[in-house]
């Protein structure tokens, strides 16, 4: 996976969640992120895949999840799309609010926002798209060498 842009179409299964996480680890490591960032990226991708497969596509075999990685100088962008009903993220309860703290679910989107530098949501028709960006720490560089 040395290409600077790659995408996968995947089944709506639990295995896909694990595969998405493993692919994220690989792509992040190849992109030069340190161990801590790799963990954060892998967790964000895992949570996005859980949302896509379990909540969006609801494990419907007829619906697919697409996972895209794009490597650019100094940053990487990951896109996860599902074919579900779409999710209004602004309506989600705050998992840090005292009344929600002891809930057993509802932390996925919060974790994605915490782990990544930029997160954008877009409702497709049908489906949902989440675009996540992580910057390589340190001085900004425009060198093409960083892509190799």
């Amino acid at each position, binding site marked *: 996976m040395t290409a600077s842009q790659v995408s996968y179409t995947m089944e709506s299964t639990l295995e896909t969640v694990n595969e998405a996480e493993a692919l994220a680890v690989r792509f992040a490591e190849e992109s030069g992120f340190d161990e801590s960032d790799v963990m954060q990226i892998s*967790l964000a991708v895992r949570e996005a895949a859980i949302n896509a497969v379990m909540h969006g596509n609801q494990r419907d075999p007829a619906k697919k999840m697409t996972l895209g990685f794009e490597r650019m100088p100094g940053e990487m962008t990951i896109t996860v799309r599902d074919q579900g009903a779409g999710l209004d993220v602004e309506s989600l309860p705050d998992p840090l609010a005292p009344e929600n703290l002891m809930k057993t679910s509802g932390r996925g989107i919060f974790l994605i926002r915490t782990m990544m530098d930029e997160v954008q949501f877009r409702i497709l028709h049908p489906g949902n798209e989440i675009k996540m960006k992580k910057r390589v720490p340190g001085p900004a560089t425009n060198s093409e060498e960083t892509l190799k």
Partner: protein
Amino acid sequence: MSLKTTTRQVDGVTIVDCSGRITLGEGSVVLRELVRELLSKGDKNLLLNLGDVTYIDSSGIGELVSAFTTVKNQGGALKLLNLTKKVHDLLQITKLYTVFDVHDNEVAAIQSYK
């Protein structure tokens, strides 16, 4: 690698040594079923040793919260031991670090149940 658990009894406290991943699917189910089994046997003082837990996701965090509440509702106490940096950071971020009674010394953790 999924979640592997070993249980031992020390001075009335059931210590669960966990290794692997507490994530959506098998890892979360293993933890849920183990806690249910221990409670059904009357073991209500549970200490989860998470020193060898390599990964946890939102489902795993939810499972820890669920176990904490379930044990508490049955008059027991579920505490955490030896958090890795990853798990520690996630509990901090989610504001759950202060909810759980967290220890880094097993002897002190056991004494805290008295």
